């Protein structure tokens, strides 16, 4: 589904990603871990098409299409969803109105009819249960005055509504208490299917107790330096990142 080959990206001339290789197949959950500043969020942003990052080398194919050639909105319409680390506030625009615009533009791109108000609300009601989100929250201005937990829950709710094939969760666990973490993870797990894939970007192992990955990759200095199963995450939790850093850094000096 997603094939990343030798991806290099920089911001304002500073290289952040230095040759990422990653294959993600339908039905899989991949966790990207790594110390602060290793390039985890950059990878998420580059895949979603954030323009301040410049891709300097490499290629990304998504369902056979050159992802890097697509505008951010077209990537979304193709089925790439990014759950933001810091969801943005849009005053005066209700979540409902925002989502209806989004859902219908995505549907239009996919050659489907726009949903009328009734169908849309029915769909909303159904998906709301997934993340135990309150309808009152959805009639308020998007993310404005939402608590950290509400914002993240709203992200997963949007994910449920847009039915992406590839979901990238960027530090979705940050700022969540244990209950919110459980609710959010629960939502993500319910949305999992054999046809879609999830990339979980996280600093801590904690989230992976709830969203169990098939593969864990450690990102350091812009490269995937170690890959493994969920046991790798547990090892990291126990030993920290230093042993990996040391191994890589000593290699580099040789």
């Amino acid at each position, binding site marked *: 589904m997603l094939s990343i080959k030798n991806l290099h990206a920089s911001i304002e001339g500073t290289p952040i990603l230095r040759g990422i290789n990653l294959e993600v197949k339908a039905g899989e959950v991949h966790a990207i871990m790594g110390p602060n500043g290793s390039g985890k969020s950059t990878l998420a942003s580059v895949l979603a098409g954030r323009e*301040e990052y410049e891709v300097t080398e490499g290629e990304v194919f998504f369902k056979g299409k050159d992802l890097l050639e697509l505008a951010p*909105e077209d990537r979304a319409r193709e089925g790439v969803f990014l759950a*933001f680390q810091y969801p*943005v506030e849009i005053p*005066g625009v209700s979540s409902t109105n*925002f989502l209806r615009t989004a859902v219908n*533009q*995505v549907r239009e791109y996919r050659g489907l009819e726009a949903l009328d108000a009734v169908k849309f609300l029915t769909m909303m009601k159904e998906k709301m249960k997934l993340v135990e989100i309150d309808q009152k929250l959805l009639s308020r201005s998007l993310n404005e005055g939402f608590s950290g937990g509400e914002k993240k829950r709203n992200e997963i709710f949007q994910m449920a509504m847009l039915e992406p094939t590839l979901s990238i969760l960027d530090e979705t666990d940050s700022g969540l208490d244990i209950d919110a973490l459980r609710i959010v993870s629960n939502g993500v797990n319910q949305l999992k299917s054999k046809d879609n894939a999830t990339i979980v970007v996280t600093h801590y192992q904690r989230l992976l107790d709830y969203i169990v990955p098939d593969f864990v990759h450690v990102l350091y200095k812009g490269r995937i330096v170690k890959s493994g199963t969920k046991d790798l995450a547990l090892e990291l939790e126990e030993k920290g990142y230093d042993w990996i850093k040391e191994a890589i850094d000593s290699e580099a000096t040789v």
Partner: protein
Amino acid sequence: MSKDNQILEEFTSKEYEHGWSVNYEADEAPIGLNEDIIKWISTKKEEPLWLLEWRLKAFKTWKTMTEPSWANVKYPKVDLQSLRYYSAPKQSNKPKSLDEVDPELLQIYERLGINLNEQKKLQGIAVDAVLDSVSVGTTFKATLSKLGIVFCSFSEAVKEHPDLVKKYLGSVVPMTDNYYAALNSAVFSDGSFCYIPKGVRCPMELSTYFRINAANTGQFERTLIVAEDEAYVSYLEGCTAPQRDENQLHAAVVEIYAAKNAEVKYSTVQNWFPGDKNGKGGIYNFVTKRGICAGDYSKISWTQVETGSAVTWKYPSCILKGDNSIGEFYSVAVTNNYQQADTGTKMIHIGKNTKSRIVSKGISAGKSQNSYRGQVQVMKRADNARNFSQCDSLLMGDRCGAHTFPYIDINNSSAKVEHEATTSKIGEDQLFYCNQRGISTEDAVALIVNGYAKEVLNQLPMEFAVEAQKLLALTLEGSVG
């Protein structure tokens, strides 16, 4: 160059939609401005002597006045002697009803989406259509007159209801009020007149649609709305003009009189030609709008959506004379390219327990300048006056300007006046967030801008609100790549 800037480079792709004009055979005054022209207009309109004298007096005063220069706008001086002060479509017989109006003229309005055919029209809105210097027709006159409501062109009111016109004309905006109001008093050609008798709630929206068609012609219309005790009316005003290379002058006067317990809601969607993307052409919109809450418990509410004009200079105001009267001003002003707007309001608290509320939302893009100028004045005997002002500015790009000039003048210590102001930018973050959900950048801008202006748009009558939302989106179309 950041994305924001690139976005704005592409800001100007949308052409002005109502930029067309038609050729009609016109009845025109000679070019220039002098006493003879004023007499010519007055004669043309078969006006009574008192009105001609009123005009001439205004003209005399105007000659002693100078153009105001305090507004935060820059434009070359208008050569008032090179303008034409009257231009009207030639009609062989004066039409007595809409059925007799030249179909070609009706077509102009149809093309603008204003159907003057009562059968085909949406129920609930009566329209007075003003083309250049004259009113070409007013709908639903008969329906309204059964309730004692007078809704007609100003010229007709002068003939049919001279006492009312004489009583209220210039009572809210005196002929000597300011340079442009004085000029308007001298040369005004038509406009709408509306009178709601005591105790009547006007059952439909009344509206005037102003269209400038002729070149080198100024439009100087006057609107007078009188609501007697316990009366209610909601009034709408819309405007467009052809795309021309020369700047055109529009200097209108609107007066509102609200008696005891009366309520007048006045809404404007102003979409005069704003000039092209290089700042060529466009309307100079120098307008004086003022209402007086003369009676106790009366209320006047102004709502404006300003998207057009090259230069706007406009401060719809309320004089809160009656005790417990209320004044409101809700405004969205959008400027793009080289547009300049200096707009706001004045709330003059005279009566006791008077309240005013100001919500101003400026949106600046391109190389435009957008200023809010507002005055809150509390007079000595206005005990317990309350004012709340909120002035927000939204910037798109880094070459436009947003300015706020609040003036507060309090002469009574029991007054409570609050002022809030914010400035924000449509951020890359917001746009990217929308994009990431599959929303195109253009729709994202429309969504964000309409969200920002929501509090004001909510004040507009339903049909107008939809129209205004589209207009906002259209004005900003192409603003982002």
